């Protein structure tokens, strides 16, 4: 038994030493990484010297739909594909901690996070994509610890903060060394040959699924996250507006329910809300504007950005120049 114990402890000691060496080296790499969604974009935003007047936060739909350079004020799109509200709220807490908050925020919301079938709740696992800030940012640390009672065991290993990101981290580090980024965070979707086919083949199925959803309720977890987001903005005097992008398919019951709730909830909180999904303008019926049923291509993005600018004009007062397209 003594030999077994010595063997076991030796592995643990070796692992702790190796873990600390690797995490130290990766921390160094990470701090010089300014490309990509595995932390580089956040790093790039945090490292920017110039102030940001307007920050766009959201998922891939916000990332592909809103063109920051169309606004006359200094605008940056800090959007992350596939991420939901817990990620965006965590990101806001990081910006607050790092004193990098903008003057205005345009937050993109998704109806399916707010209206869920009874008994279901929004996925909180997206906070793990901010795992680099575990132990650095209290909000992120707390939310990750709440994922499961054993999460701290994984995070005892410092290298775990780079789990699954090692290759992209090394790749983006070399990209950053070659070329320092200089962009506003927008990446357009260019029209492709199969786009129309993709949209048409998807839309019927999606509408059928939407129509079959019953027992929908408003998700309290998402409300709490949105309230938290709003309170961070309020205590830092940030002007906040929320919006929902259009879909190609007809909005279902959950979109309607969420729209009614969000309109009322955000009105009570004094936050502007624009819903291009439920109140979809007719321009978006044009199939040529879409990459798939959820994402507009660059032509669609130009239209949505323009409409958003029109609707947020009063909100941003004179800061947005409508003549600048």
């Amino acid at each position, binding site marked *: 038994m003594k030999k*077994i114990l010595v*063997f076991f402890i*030796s*592995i643990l000691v070796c692992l702790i030493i190796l873990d600390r060496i690797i995490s130290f080296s990766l921390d160094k790499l990470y701090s010089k990484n300014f490309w990509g969604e595995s932390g580089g974009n956040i790093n790039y935003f945090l490292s920017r010297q110039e102030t940001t007047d307007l920050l766009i936060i959201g998922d891939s739909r916000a990332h592909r739909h809103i063109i920051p350079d169309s606004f006359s004020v200094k605008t940056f799109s800090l959007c992350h594909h596939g991420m939901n509200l817990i990620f965006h709220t965590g990101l806001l807490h990081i910006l607050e901690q790092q004193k990098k908050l903008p003057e205005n925020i345009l937050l993109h919301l998704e109806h399916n996070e707010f209206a869920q079938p009874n008994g279901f709740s929004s996925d909180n696992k997206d906070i793990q994509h901010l795992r680099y800030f575990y132990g650095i940012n209290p909000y992120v640390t707390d939310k990750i610890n709440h994922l499961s009672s054993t999460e701290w065991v994984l995070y005892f290993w410092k*290298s775990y903060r780079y*789990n699954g990101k*090692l*290759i*992209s981290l090394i790749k983006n580090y070399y990209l950053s060394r070659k070329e320092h980024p200089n962009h506003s965070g927008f990446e357009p979707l260019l029209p492709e040959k199969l786009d129309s086919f993709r949209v048409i083949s998807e839309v019927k199925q999606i509408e059928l699924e939407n129509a079959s959803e019953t027992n929908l309720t408003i998700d309290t977890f998402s409300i709490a996250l949105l309230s938290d987001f709003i309170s961070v903005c309020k205590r830092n005097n940030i002007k906040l507006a929320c919006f929902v992008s259009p879909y190609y398919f007809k909005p279902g019951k959950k979109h309607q329910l969420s729209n009614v709730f969000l309109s009322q909830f955000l009105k009570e909180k004094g936050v502007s809300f624009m819903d291009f999904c439920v109140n979809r303008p007719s321009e978006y019926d044009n199939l040529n504007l879409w990459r798939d049923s959820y994402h507009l291509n660059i032509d669609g993005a130009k239209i949505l950005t323009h409409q958003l600018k029109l609707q947020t004009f009063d909100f941003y007062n004179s800061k947005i120049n409508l003549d600048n397209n």
Partner: protein
Amino acid sequence: MVFNSIQYLIFFLIIFGLYYVIQPKYRWVLMLIGSYFFYMSWKPVYILLIIFSTSVDYYVSNKMYRIKDPKLKKKFLIGSIIVNLSLLFFFKYYNFFNDSISTVLGHFNVIYHPIISTILLPVGLSFYTFQSLSFNIDVYKGKVIPERHIGKFALYISFFPQLVAGPIERATNLLPQIQRNDSNLTYQNFAAGLSQLLFGLFKKVVVADTAAIYVNSVYNNYEFYTGSTLLIATYIFALQIYCDFSGYSDMAIGSARMLGYNLMENFRIPYFSKSVTEFWRRWHISLSSWLRDYLYIPLGGNRKGVFFAIKNLILTMLLGGLWHGASWNFVIWGALNGFYLAIERILNWNKIEFNKNIFSKSFYAFLTFNLISLSWIFFRAQSFDQSLFIIKEIFHSRDFFNFQIIDTSIFANIIIGTAILLLFEYFVFRKANFIPIVNTKSLTWVILFCTVMLMLVILFGISEGSQFIYFQF
């Protein structure tokens, strides 16, 4: 509770600690309680099935041993087979059977609406049913003396490391180890067991789970991908299913070995096989040897000439396919493999000398890998139509070379994981098992191996605690 979870780590540490302090003659009690607890972590009520199956087989095996009349003995065996297979049929094949009847009757304009069962398939049912079936058949044939101690017999049926996905153990191997009261907790067993467990964990969470992300994204949207992408996704699925299942087996064998039990080997680097016949000697060995001993040979094996041998091969593989799941795709998968084996039998493939040079060996290994991968399409696809679509796209794609990586990071992780896997499998585990490796390599080598495996899991592992593919069978 899956092996790749923190819950299992805690569970195993408790079992290991108690196992060490408990007197050897009472260890079976701890192992039995642990095994039942392990199984109940999925759906507690299903433990009743194991208890029922154990009670029936315990009674039948002891009764058969005492009975002198061969006819009565046979009746008891048939009774036990019917009970075991009825459980399997009810939980696993009921809906499939009714759907198939409904489809056939539909062709004759007869409307048949069977009651659809919504009962979940108990985890590992096919595995422990086959294990208890083989026990009773061996007792009937006089190969095994039935266990008189019901507790130890219950442990043989429910031994937690191999309960839910094998290896399907034979009584001749596992039962004597359970009966034995002396301690086998040695450094060699612990080190070899831990090394194998960690290598299995690496296979599962680094290779299989990462590969699953790519395979799922392609197979779930197969209409949008071209031939080359579908082909690569199929190759990656071949890798995924190997790492998923052999990873599970490694963790099972490793866990058992740390406690001093030796389970049978279940995989022997199957993708290095130079024929399909050789592949089936190296893939899921505990099932393929079970099918050989309890189905193929009783059917007549190759004793009645080539024609009957081929018929028996195809029938065995068809039922082997059906064992995997209640779907026609699994039947086709089994039939296709049976067809390969039949062709090889006709061509006397197993007598071809492969060891001429590295090029001929590589050629035959590549050919075998492609044949097996083709059959995996039926295994992975959701329907027969989907399988045909994918095969058609691979062979007749207009835009074949338009390959899509989808996510660079995931794809790079798959390549790195595969490279490390091949490196260890080819240079370390091809010729020696974990026990000889621990005995021949230095302590430092073993410590470094375990440390590197753990570090790879920390850096590249998917930590969701995902289920193993074979749990559904």
